[in-house]
Each structure stands twice: as C-alpha cells, then as structure tokens.
C-alpha cells in the first residue's frame, strides 16, 4: 500500500536529490539503470514503479544517455532547474573523477606488457558485453520480419557502409516508422 502512495508524498530537497544520485554513480558498475531504479523506487520511494517506468520510457525515447535524462526529468519534476542540476551533478561527479583517474593511470602504464595484454583481453570482453546487450534487446523482434529487416538495414548502413549517423538516423527512423505503421497488425 505504501508503494502505491510513494510518488505523491515524496518531496526530496535539492540536497537529497544530489546525495541519492551520487550514491547511484558510485555503485553503478556495469550500467547505472538497476542502481537508479533501486534508489528511486525501492529505497527512497520518490516514484512508484509505474511512474518510474513511464519516466524511463520518455527518457529512452529522447536522445541522450537514458539515466542522464532521468536525472533531468526527475530533478525538474521535484525542484525545477536546480533539482535537475543537482541530480545530474550527483550522478556524474564521482564517475567522471574515477574515470579520469583511471585514464591517467592507463596513460602512464599503457606500454607495460602485462597492462597492454590485460587491455587487449578487457577490450575483447567489453566488446562481448555490447554483443550480449544487442542479443538481449533484440528479443522483441522475434517473429517480426519487417522489424528484423529494418534492424538489418540499420546494421548494414552503419557497420558495413559506415554512413554518418546524422544522415542515416533520420532516414532510417522515418522510414521504419512509416513502414511499421503502414503494415501494423
């Protein structure tokens, strides 16, 4: 019952927003989405599960990092522009600092043989992570030949023909939207 009421009564301050997202940024190894949902919905109850899914839907539909966009939409909803800035800076501060530190260390030791070999293997595993993500998000396409065709055209345009995204994206999106709407079930 409490969960259903959560979003209505929540009133986090600008400071609360910063701290909540700061913790998400520190913990968010391998992607921040699961950590963000845990903090927003389960721990601090700023949004109900349905409200969160709706907000994430909007933020995935808009360009930009999904959770970056969630920080803006959620912060703006509670505390306007200062809230949006607090959420965004909360999320980004620790990861940017950590990644800059890692980059500096990497630059210094990049030519050490075991560091170099570690990065060859780590790069390969990171590429596999993206492959696995592509595999997982492709599951809604099963049994939809038209959508599979659109995904295949996109793949060829970008990976094989190496077309610039700024030209390919509008054409593919408009073409795909009209095609799938015309032949919708």
């Amino acid at each position, binding site marked *: 019952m409490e969960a259903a009421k959560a979003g209505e009564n929540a009133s986090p301050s600008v400071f609360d927003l910063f701290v909540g997202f700061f913790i998400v940024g520190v913990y968010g190894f391998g992607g921040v989405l699961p950590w963000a949902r845990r903090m927003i919905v389960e721990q601090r109850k700023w949004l109900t599960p349905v409200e969160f899914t709706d907000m994430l839907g909007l933020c995935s539909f808009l360009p930009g990092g999904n959770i970056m*966009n969630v920080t*803006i*939409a959620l912060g703006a909803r509670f505390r306007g522009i200062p809230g949006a800035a607090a959420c965004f800076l909360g999320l980004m501060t620790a990861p940017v600092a950590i990644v800059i530190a890692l980059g500096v260390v990497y630059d210094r030791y990049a030519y050490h043989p075991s560091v170099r*070999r570690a990065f060859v293997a780590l790069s390969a595993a*990171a590429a596999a992570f993206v492959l696995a993500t592509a595999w997982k998000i492709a599951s809604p396409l099963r049994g939809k030949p038209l959508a599979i065709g*659109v*995904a295949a055209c996109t793949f060829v345009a970008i990976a094989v023909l190496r077309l610039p995204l700024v030209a390919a994206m509008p054409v*593919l999106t408009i073409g795909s939207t009209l095609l799938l709407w015309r032949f919708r079930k």
Partner: protein
Amino acid sequence: MNTYSQLAAVYAQLSLMAFGGANALIPEMQRQVVDVHHWMSAREFAALYALAQAAPGPNMMVVSLIGLRVGGFWGALITTGAVAAPSSVLTYLVSGVWDRFKNANWRRALQAGLQPVTIGLISASAALLIESTTVDWRAALVIVVAAGLFIFTKMHPLLILSAAAVAGAIGLVG
C-alpha cells in the same frame, strides 16, 4: 578551430543523435574520433571503451576518457558537458509536456519505428568493437567465452570483465 572547440562541436552533435544511449553512439563516435579527426587509432578507441566499462557510472563515461586523451583534464570536462547539455535541455523541455501525449498515435508509431533502428545500431556497435579488438585467436576466444557468460549466466558483468583482464595480465590471453 582549435581542439577544444572541435571536441565540443563533435560531442554536442553526438548528444542529439544518442537514441538508445551511449552504446548506439559508438560507431559514429569512432568514425568522428578515428576517421574524421585522427585523434587516435581504432584499437586505442576500443581500449578506452574497455577502460570506461571498468569504471562505475553511466555508459557515457567513454566520452570523458576520449576528452581526456585528446584534450587533457579540460578536454574531459568539455566532452562530458557537450554530450550532456543538448539532450538535457531537450529532456527538460519535453518532460514538462510529456503526459499530454501519453496515448497519442504518433508517439506509439514513433516508438515502434525507433525500436528496430536502435537494435540495429547497437548490433553495429558490437560489430565494430569486435572488429577492432579481435587482434588474434586468443582475443577471439575471449569474445566468444565472455559473450556466452554475459548472455547465458547471471554472473556479475564486472566479474567477467575483471576475469578477462586478469587472464590477459598473467599472459593466458591477449
């Protein structure tokens, strides 16, 4: 244009194209950074991507690392700010009026149309990263084994990534 303004221009433009988040941006980012501006090689790009995966935070962290490599500390802040600002302003403006279009047909049509394009983009990212990281048969083996673990087990991604790095460091692979 100096390097800072080139970085800002490239990443501000990428920001508004990032449908499906950072992973969908990899091919265009690689094209701009490697082919257009010659800031680094494709292998270096893949190594920075891997380094970003090893850090916490959003997938967008690779953007900060590329800024750092190309323009030092200020380069990192500029690319991070440039990739965030345009999409954040858009999100701020749109989130205010979103509810009005909740059940609009155009919104549902656009969402359905965007889905396969996003999937194709992320598959293209995977293909480009695999192409630049498969330096020998052992790297190929890492990709196959790691992909199997990512897809078919519930192992923590960080565990798989660090296992690969350790195997590389002690000379098993890589």
